[in-house]
């Protein structure tokens, strides 16, 4: 069939062009399209098998009563509609409260980690990209080192640093202070600050109302002391990776623009603010998006360092989904948590895109 068509295509007089246009599959471009699809077919099949199908299966599990035994498509598994989602979103109880707490914990994690790691990565990239810095290669490698090291090794290292009798507390002790029980301290940082100011009990308006089973007072607790240790780890490990994204973007800025600005009398800060930063916007968008997605999915550090303890203040939705599924065998609810997290990340990423592109459009006009 194809062969015939191809012969047709070659031998047809130009007058038959109209017919060819109606049968685009047989034109040269059409043939290219077929070849393109054929060549990308293996990847598409792989994506279907390893990406689309598992997501579809998880979506099914999230609306089913699958108990983790045998196939989720077996005859004994029933659809239960939105029951798993309702238990998490609308019915007061422990599942809802834990989802609320995990979202709160992760929110503070994201709010601190994303800006700090982005700023740090940008700062490191700017330093390392300086032409006059001696041993640039050494610094570039050493800043990138934490990202290459396995997260297990890094997590265990941080367990020693933040232990009660660990390195950090030894240093604080030498300076005459007394460090906290880092990984065992469930107190929120903002609550600690407030109690320092003399506010120890919640005002009734905050204590008696809340969202997702967590009172507003507890939403405002801030990250726990234990979470601060994990936040420090996350920033330390990922800043180097994102530095690597900023570096080529900085190198790509034409030096004549900077020179022209210098000639016009711009100082270093003005050059950074008016030239470097705007030209880095695509890289900045990439770093922010990747950071936002990965911080909302934080799992391995939690699994290795705290398992959600102390008092559930390092619980994150991803780890909660794991616990609900594997420990309590509530597979439907565990999958539902994963999809709620998925929806949240999609919404936040779209919002971020809109904000950044809007700003860009505003600048252009």
């Amino acid at each position, binding site marked *: 069939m194809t062969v015939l068509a191809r012969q047709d295509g070659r031998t047809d007089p130009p007058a038959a062009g109209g017919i060819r246009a109606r049968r685009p599959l047989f034109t040269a471009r059409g043939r290219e399209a077929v070849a393109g699809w054929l060549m990308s077919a293996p990847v598409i099949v792989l994506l279907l098998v390893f990406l689309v199908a598992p997501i579809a299966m998880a979506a099914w599990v999230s609306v089913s009563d699958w108990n*983790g035994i*045998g196939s989720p498509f077996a005859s004994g598994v029933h659809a239960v509609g939105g029951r798993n989602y309702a238990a998490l979103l609308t019915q007061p109880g422990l599942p809802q409260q834990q989802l609320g707490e995990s979202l709160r914990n992760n929110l503070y994690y994201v709010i601190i980690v994303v800006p700090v790691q982005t700023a740090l990565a940008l700062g490191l990239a700017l330093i390392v990209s300086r032409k006059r810095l001696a041993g640039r290669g050494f610094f570039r490698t050493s800043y990138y080192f934490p990202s290459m090291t396995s997260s297990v090794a890094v997590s265990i290292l941080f367990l020693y640093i933040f232990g*009660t009798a660990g390195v950090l507390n030894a240093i604080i002790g030498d300076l005459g202070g007394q460090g906290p029980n880092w990984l065992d301290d469930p107190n929120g940082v903002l609550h600690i600050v407030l109690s320092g100011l003399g506010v120890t009990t919640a005002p009734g308006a905050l204590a008696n109302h809340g969202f997702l089973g967590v009172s507003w007072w507890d939403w405002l607790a801030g990250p726990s002391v234990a979470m601060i240790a994990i936040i420090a780890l996350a920033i330390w490990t990922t800043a180097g990776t994102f530095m690597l994204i900023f570096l080529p973007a900085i190198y790509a800025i034409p030096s004549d623009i900077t020179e022209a600005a210098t000639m016009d009398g711009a100082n270093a800060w003005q050059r950074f603010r008016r030239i470097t930063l705007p030209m880095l916007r695509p890289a900045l968008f990439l770093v922010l998006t990747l950071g936002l997605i990965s911080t909302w999915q934080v799992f391995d550090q939690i699994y290795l360092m705290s398992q959600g303890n102390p008092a559930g203040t390092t619980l994150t939705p991803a780890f909660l989904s794991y616990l609900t599924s594997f420990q309590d065998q*509530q597979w439907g609810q565990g999958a539902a948590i994963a999809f709620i997290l998925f929806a949240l990340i999609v919404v936040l990423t779209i919002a971020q895109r809109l904000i950044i592109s809007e700003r860009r459009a505003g600048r252009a006009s």
Partner: protein
Amino acid sequence: MRSKFAIAALAAAGLAVLSTACSSGNGFGSSSASSAAAATPNKSALTLMFGSSGTAETAAVQQAAKAFTKQSGIPVQVIAASNLTQQVAQGFSGGTPPNVFYLDPLTFQNYAKDGVLDAYPSTLPNSSDFASALSQAFTYKSTFTCEPKDASTLALYVNTTDWQQAGLGAPPSNWSQLEADAKKLTTGGRAGLTIDQTHSGIDEFLYQNGGTVTNAAGTKVELDSSQNVAALTFLKGMLNQGIMKFPSQVGAGFSGQAFGENKAAMDIIGNWENGELESDYPNVKFKVYPLPAGPSGTHATLSFTNCWGVPKQQSNLAGAVDLVKFLTTSQQEMTFSKAFGVIPSLNTAQAQYVKTYPQYATFVQELAYAHPDIAIAGSTQALSAFDSALQQLGSGNPASILKTAQQNLQAVINQGA
């Protein structure tokens, strides 16, 4: 238009490939092995999956498996799981669970509820040779379903050096003596008593005060009783006096570490502490006593155990039950005991254990009035929320801690029912 059609076609083709792969492969298909096929004895290899406490336990289990193979001709693959609960769950969802595996009481409830465990004990001769606290932990709807492999109880560890320095005599036999002794043992840098800040370290006080955790049938949570409130108030009092401290207050990961480092002179903990003291704190001189009784003279402790889980749907059910039979002889249990320090689960083996280790006889004697640690299907997170609240007992309100835990656990039971 055209490309949309092509995408749809490819997607359809991909899904078709996928669905055939799923239905024909054994990845997600239901297991083809039926219990009828398994009833006939066969020599197909068994998998034994367990969570190891260390190299001594791994070596002992491997050795036992080898001895079984020699006797029966059935090869056994021993897998020391790094995360047992997760790996067993993966096995069940893939339709190929391990033939025999260690199973904790809480996960037991999950699987028993799903009806995937073989209730083999009735076919074995030793099924009545267990203390009731142990068999009760693995009884689902009045069927004893899984044989315990070991036993542990909580007891009172006393640092004898501290004890003599404080000039104390007989060990405390009731709560008021416990409190008085803790007060005398407390010094500037050392608490008199430490206990673990979890339900597994605290619930024995509820039972000692005549309280309970659930009703006998396990259908109703009874945590918020006045006896339980009084028990937690007693503990809170000792915390506030500074004569009892939770391990995290003295910078220890668990109470046994605080005891080993002599940040506390007494500790209520299970017999796994023996190995800890032996390997990490060999210079600590200690003695083990039964727990003091509550105000009304009630003796109680908590018991902990794991069992040999055997899935109903599997490749060699008869072989798996034979393996469990081999592993639960008095002789084999004593071998395990000598290798890595566990207390045997069989009454007959315990009699030998008490003779060999008279200093640890307390743990076995306490089994007579032990209550199994709470195990309700799907309650892991409700329990960890309870633990979080107990951690704040010093500043918290005992009644509201118990009330919240009561509601959360009852919700778990209601959801499962």
